């Protein structure tokens, strides 16, 4: 008491003139530490009292501190670090720091969160700022280069196609290598869920602007809590929630434009006509009247010279608007958002529209209960006229637009001079002046104008939870969530030209409803004993039930050609189809974490899963992961050695465990089935599935070791990890000898493979001054994938592209999905023939048209050779998985200007540029201008053989050749953003808290030797064993956007 008195006395003295203990008025301005802009709406409180105010529009406040109270003020503002400042003067200006950094210090693990510093698992976190306001359809498209060990490839330029995501390499052969995606605790649907030619990524239902963070669990210590589904890594998506404080309204909008880029240069009508006639003459079949290519004039008397790129592609435009309201009181917080984006892609009629809303509420009732939940709904439209030819399985589709744009002859037009569509037959474009040969497949103009292949997704993702905080250190929580994904498809094929014109038009509709519920119950205990022993225990039970049902119908032959709807009249009998699928996963899991003095860490996860798809004796599996950590910087010797002056932290960590994979396994994979059909009007029963009652989950044994360090109070941080994923019992569709005659390829847990690699992430706060800052972030990953065993006696398997081209081979001892080609060695200068290398190493030359009695294949000495075939002469030529990949991110700020540039790269891999085979094919197909270099005279050194009409062998159409394989290495300036934050004076007028305007560009530059449109490509989508194939795919576009972000 006496001391207090003394203290007060001293204080009073110190304050000097204001001798009396009376109320004091303090004024000041609160600004953003980052850019100095004023912060309105900041709560200014006298701690422990009810006295408080808020900053005004210019960030200015004035508060009266009551007599006798503490001489401090507490500044609280959503999204910023709270500061408590001692009152030393009557004018107190305060700068608040954005708490993005503090957010990154928390990691969302399965069924909970952990301080990053306490983590022993390998987890990468991508925060909101990397995801908002990007010209993408789904957040996963924006993850490229943002996290070590996570390889993202956007495989084509079709809107809303799911990117290829690989966490630490390809971790499955026959099942999916796509990670488990958990949104706010509920494992959600993934992949392309559209049933139409327009892609429909299930994850696009989430507005990227609603995402708070994406945490990627990579090793067993982090991921094992997801047991049988964690082998491919786990992405945990956490959506935003409200924080205590004044309601904040945010508005984000952008507009953008996308253009095609790096398209192969094609022959024009004049060049085409000349080249094809030369090819006919070389083949000896040219005949002006019956077999020739000829120019004709259009209605204006000019020769028709169609650039089919102009017909198929367009300048895409897009816009996005999101608004959110967030706030909260002491007990309740809320986040509500709505958004609409309308995007038009580079392919004509390929559109994407999404309307979405999210309402999230968390409430604390009394001292014991917490409750809350969310309702998230989105309606998406994935629209297309017809197949792009770019999604998995579409590469060789007759109507694939990527292919039509390059195949169709330039000397014909979409329409005849009388305005009607130019058609030859129901499925081919009209020949116009050309004689004796088709000049294309479908008329691209007709199908683009008249066809339709649309998808609509309605996606509801909601949950409710109730948590009881039984004791301060013990809580129990139950969460029930639903994920309903409804997919509607509507397509129409016109009666004039295209897929159904022969039958005078067709329409189809189909509907699939996927319904999932997940019920999770957990008990969590967190206690610290004797100050230094911290223990955290989690016990849980979870059930996940998914049921899918679908129905579709098709109608053919329009009664009246004026209509194009499913409901119109059709004369042919309708067709229909139906589908049903169900599965159930029930799990019990636990996590125990312990640390001693934040110095030594141990975490163990264990999970038992039972899954319905496995055979009767194999339903149950137990998975676990154990991690250890050691914070060396806390050791006494560290300080003694003076290392603490440099390293603010230095933590070693390591983990080991076993997790599984079931993603992509058939619901009834363990059974063999006979299914019904029809023969002459009566029922048939035929073998339909070769099952395996021993089927079980795939096993991934994950080892991880590394360290995290921070230098100079974490101004510079580094994370390093070495990992090895040993994959055992991989399910393999054991290829059976075709003559064995099994109805389907049986699956067995028979293959094995490993991925090993290293990851390095470097972050720095290189420069941070009031006016200028520079924050570079760099990551690089190296991965090596090796198949170690397939089924017994099998050393390799081949994967086809679009069921037609066998360009991918996987061999034991090598990586998945190598390019499978016959080696070629240029063109013989003497004869202009392509030189192929036989399996015995001998050179064989090919000439498509030979005089009667001669063979097309001959050795160099002119003697007849047996033909080249892929089976006999093909070889595993080059790898398609990048050895190195990663990103380099730089953020600059100068006063109110900011600049961010993201570079991504993938190095050390090859691509089979199958499109190039088509671009040089000597059937009627239009060609690359490279064909102008074709061999014409002896001693001419060129890589293009002499042209013979009909030749589909010399340039790789008949079977893949090494001449069409190129290095795919690329460094891409994926995005660059340049922004300006409006000054406070201006904001005040607009009654805004903050506002930033920006322009950005995507895919602006890239460095690559790859000759195709874009080395970031996959004609086979997420396929594990046929990556690195570019066959008639539409490349990614180049996008510019401009936008505004404002807070009120």
């Amino acid at each position, binding site marked *: 008491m006496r001391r207090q008195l003394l203290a007060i006395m001293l204080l009073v003295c110190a304050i000097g003139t204001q001798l009396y203990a009376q109320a004091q008025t303090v004024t000041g301005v609160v600004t953003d530490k980052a850019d100095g802009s004023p912060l309105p709406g900041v709560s200014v409180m006298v701690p422990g009292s009810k006295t408080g105010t808020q900053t005004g529009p210019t960030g200015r406040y004035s508060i009266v501190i009551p007599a006798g109270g503490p001489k401090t003020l507490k500044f609280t503002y959503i999204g910023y670090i709270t500061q408590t400042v001692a009152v030393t003067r009557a004018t107190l200006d305060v700068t608040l720091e954005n708490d993005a950094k503090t957010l990154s210090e928390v990691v969302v693990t399965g069924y909970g969160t952990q301080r990053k510093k306490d983590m022993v698992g390998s987890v990468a976190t991508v925060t909101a700022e990397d995801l908002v306001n990007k010209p993408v359809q789904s957040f996963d498209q924006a993850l490229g280069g943002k996290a070590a060990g996570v390889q993202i490839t956007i495989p084509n330029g079709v809107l809303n196609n799911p990117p290829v995501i690989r966490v630490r390499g390809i971790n499955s052969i026959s099942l999916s290598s796509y990670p488990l995606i958990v949104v706010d605790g509920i494992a959600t649907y993934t992949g392309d869920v559209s049933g139409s030619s327009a892609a429909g990524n299930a994850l696009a239902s989430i507005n990227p602007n609603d995402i708070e963070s994406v945490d990627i669990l990579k090793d067993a210590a982090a991921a094992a809590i997801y047991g049988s589904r964690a082998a491919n890594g786990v992405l945990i998506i956490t959506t935003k929630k409200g924080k205590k404080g004044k309601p904040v309204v945010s508005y984000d909008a952008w507009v953008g434009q996308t253009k095609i880029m790096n398209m192969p240069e094609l022959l024009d009508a004049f060049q085409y006509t000349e080249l094809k006639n030369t090819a006919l003459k070389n083949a000896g079949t040219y005949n002006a009247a019956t077999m020739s290519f000829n120019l004709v004039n259009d209605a204006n008397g000019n020769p028709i010279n169609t650039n089919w790129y102009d017909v198929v592609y367009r300048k895409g435009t897009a816009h996005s608007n999101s608004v959110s309201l967030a706030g909260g009181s002491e007990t309740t917080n809320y986040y509500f958002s709505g958004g609409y984006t309308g995007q038009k892609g580079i392919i004509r009629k390929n559109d994407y529209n999404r309307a979405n809303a999210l309402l999230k509420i968390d409430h604390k009732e009394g001292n014991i209960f917490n409750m809350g939940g969310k309702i998230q709904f989105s309606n998406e439209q994935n629209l297309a006229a017809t197949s792009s030819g770019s999604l998995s399985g579409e590469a060789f589709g007759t109507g694939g637009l990527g292919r039509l744009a390059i195949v169709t002859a330039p000397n014909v037009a979409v329409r005849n001079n009388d305005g009607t569509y130019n058609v030859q037959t129901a499925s081919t474009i009209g020949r116009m002046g050309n004689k004796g040969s*088709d000049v294309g497949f479908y008329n691209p103009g007709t199908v683009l104008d008249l066809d339709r292949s649309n998808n609509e997704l309605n996606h509801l993702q909601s949950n409710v939870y109730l948590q009881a905080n039984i004791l301060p250190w013990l809580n129990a929580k139950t969460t029930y969530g639903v994920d309903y994904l409804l997919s509607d498809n509507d397509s129409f094929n016109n009666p004039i030209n295209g897929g159904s014109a022969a039958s005078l038009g067709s329409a189809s509709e189909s509907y699939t409803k996927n319904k999932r519920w997940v019920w999770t119950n957990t008990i969590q205990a967190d206690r610290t004993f004797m100050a230094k022993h911290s223990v955290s225990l989690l016990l849980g*039970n979870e059930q996940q039930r998914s049921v899918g049902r679908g129905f579709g119908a098709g109608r053919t032959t329009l009664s009246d050609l004026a209509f194009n709807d499913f409901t119109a009249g059709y004369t042919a009998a309708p067709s229909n189809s139906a589908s049903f699928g169900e599965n159930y996963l029930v799990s019990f899991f636990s996590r125990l974490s312990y640390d001693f003095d934040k110095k030594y860490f141990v975490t163990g996860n264990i999970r038992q899963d039972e899954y319905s798809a496995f055979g009767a004796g194999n339903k149950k599996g137990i998975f676990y992961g154990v991690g250890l950590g050691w914070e060396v910087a806390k050791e006494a010797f560290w300080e003694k050695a003076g290392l603490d002056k440099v390293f603010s932290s230095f933590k070693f960590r390591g983990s080991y465990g076993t997790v599984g994979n079931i993603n992509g396994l058939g619901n009834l994979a363990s059974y063999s*089935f006979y299914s019904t059909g029809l023969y002459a*009007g009566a*029922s048939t029963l035929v073998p339909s599935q070769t099952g395996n009652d021993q089927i079980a989950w795939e096993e991934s044994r994950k080892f991880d070791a590394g360290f995290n360090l921070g230098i100079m109070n974490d101004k510079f941080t580094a994370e390093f990890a070495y990992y090895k994923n040993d994959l055992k019992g991989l399910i393999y569709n054991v290829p059976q000898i075709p003559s064995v005659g099994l109805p389907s390829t049986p699956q067995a847990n028979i293959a094995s493979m490993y991925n090993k690699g290293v990851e390095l992430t470097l972050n720095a706060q290189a420069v941070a001054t009031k006016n200028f800052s520079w924050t570079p972030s760099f990551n690089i990953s190296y991965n090596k994938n090796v198949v170690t065993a397939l089924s017994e006696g099998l050393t390799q398997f081949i994967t086809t592209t679009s069921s037609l081209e066998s360009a991918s081979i996987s061999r034991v001892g090598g990586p998945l999905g190598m390019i499978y080609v016959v080696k070629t060695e240029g063109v013989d200068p003497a004869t202009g023939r392509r030189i192929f290398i036989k399996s015995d190493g001998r050179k064989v030359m090919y000439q498509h048209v030979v005089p009667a009695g001669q063979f097309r294949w001959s050795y160099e000495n002119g003697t007849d050779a047996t033909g080249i*075939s892929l089976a006999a002469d093909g070889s595993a030529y080059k790898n398609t998985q990048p050895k190195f990949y990663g990103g380099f991110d730089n953020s600059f700020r100068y006063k109110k200007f900011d600049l961010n540039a993201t570079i991504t790269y993938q190095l050390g891999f090859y691509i089979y540029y199958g499109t190039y085979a088509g671009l040089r094919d000597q059937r009627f197909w239009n060609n690359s201008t490279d064909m102008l270099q074709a061999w014409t005279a002896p001693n001419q050194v060129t890589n293009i053989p002499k042209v013979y009409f009909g030749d589909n062998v010399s340039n790789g159409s008949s079977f893949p050749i090494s001449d069409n394989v190129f290095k795919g290495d690329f460094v891409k300036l994926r995005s660059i953003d340049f922004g300006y934050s409006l000054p406070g004076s201006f904001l005040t007028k607009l009654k805004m808290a903050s506002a930033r305007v920006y322009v950005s560009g995507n895919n602006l530059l890239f460095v690559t030797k790859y000759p195709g449109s874009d080395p970031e490509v996959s004609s086979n989508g997420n396929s594990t064993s046929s990556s690195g194939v570019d066959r008639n795919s539409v490349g990614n576009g180049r996008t510019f956007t401009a936008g505004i972000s404002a807070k009120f």
Partner: protein
Amino acid sequence: MKKKFIYTILMAAGLVAGCQKDLLTPESKNAVSTLDLAQFSTTARIDGQVLGLYAGLRSGDFYGGRYLIYNELRADNFLAQSSNSVTAYQTYNYTVGNGAQEVTDFWSSAYNTINRCNLFIEGMAAKGTSVIGDAISKNYVGEAKFIRAVCYYSLLQLYARPYYDGNGAKPGLPLRLTGNSVAGNYDLARSTVAQVYTQVLKDLDEAETGVPLTYATALASTTRAHRNSVIAFKTRVYLTMQRWTDVVTEANKIVSTAAPFTATTGVANALQADYTKVFASPYTTTESIFSMPFVAGTEQGGGQSALSSYYYGVKLYSLNPTGIIGDAGWKATDKRRTYITYTGAIPYLSKFPTGSPTYADYVPVIRYAEVLLNLAEALARSTTSVNTRALALLNAVRGRSDASTVFTAADFATPGDFYNAILKEKNIEFLGEGLRSPELLRLGLTIPGKGTVSAVPSTSIQYIFPISATELIYNKLMTDNL
């Protein structure tokens, strides 16, 4: 109070949660599991399986169209109007490799059907016979053997050297006679051509005594095997093997000695007076000994496998003006020429006119006219003469479509001329029905060139298909055609 509330909630959660065991063992809602041979557990399922064997034969890659298409397009009667590899251009152009769709998919389709037959034959012995009774079981097993024989015979026509080449000593096919239902090691080398033919004949002999003499409906008598179908097919097999006297023996079982030539036992197979009736709905005349049924709406042909899509509907291949339709001896008034339809100046075969989307024309496997011409050729060749009955058989086929032409012995200077006349008659009669390539190959004749495609002599590697690439990779004992 509060505590009670909490505990109640926790207990409720614990009880309801946990696990719903029944959801862990789902059962199919639409397919029959093979546990306990359930596919043989009822007569309806067994009936369904027999028809399923035929359905295998009818698949698009096989008799649903493509098998016939390949045998036509690799010969000389058609010209490509498209260069799409998916619609057999490589077969047409002789550029099929081991991995070509034609090569791999027909191979798989035929063997898939063979395995169905093997599984069925074994399953009937193990369980089916006890369910359905001996008599019907015998019928059904006979049908299975007939279908297996058709499969092996068809495979031989494309993947093996013709029988004449070394009397069947050349590499034939892996001969699989046991049913496979699970993954396993099934490496198997090729039997010789002769060994496979021996099996084909053994199956057909056993089928002949197994299958019913006749069926209750014309539809069944056209779409399922009866005794005459087995015998008819045997004439084709023996003819392919150049075993002329065996052809005569078999054919005589179902061809009367004198005109009008008809089958005297079993189904009353006979030539139809009007050729066009055979290719028109309901497609079930007694001339169609065995055909593959298609039904608009429910059992439609495939868009890229149906005959119509190649010849007429999508017009992928036109008739070659210098092929058989250019033959002067085939008169303009011949009824069979009504199936040559011009689009502009380009002739197309309109024998199978029902196009997209139904493609509902039946696909003929064997017709009575073929038996007559097989018999005619065998009679002539076995006697090395312009055999009188053979001449009558030839006239029977020609005469019903072209009454104005009557061949006499005087028309043929040598027996060879007579053989050629019979071959030409077959070429005309079965245009588009998939007989052309086997007809050339069985005699070692050069496949004539067409358009820009050169002729293929019997010594050429292109004379037959290469072996399926996937078979070569996975069957360690398999060898390619070289």
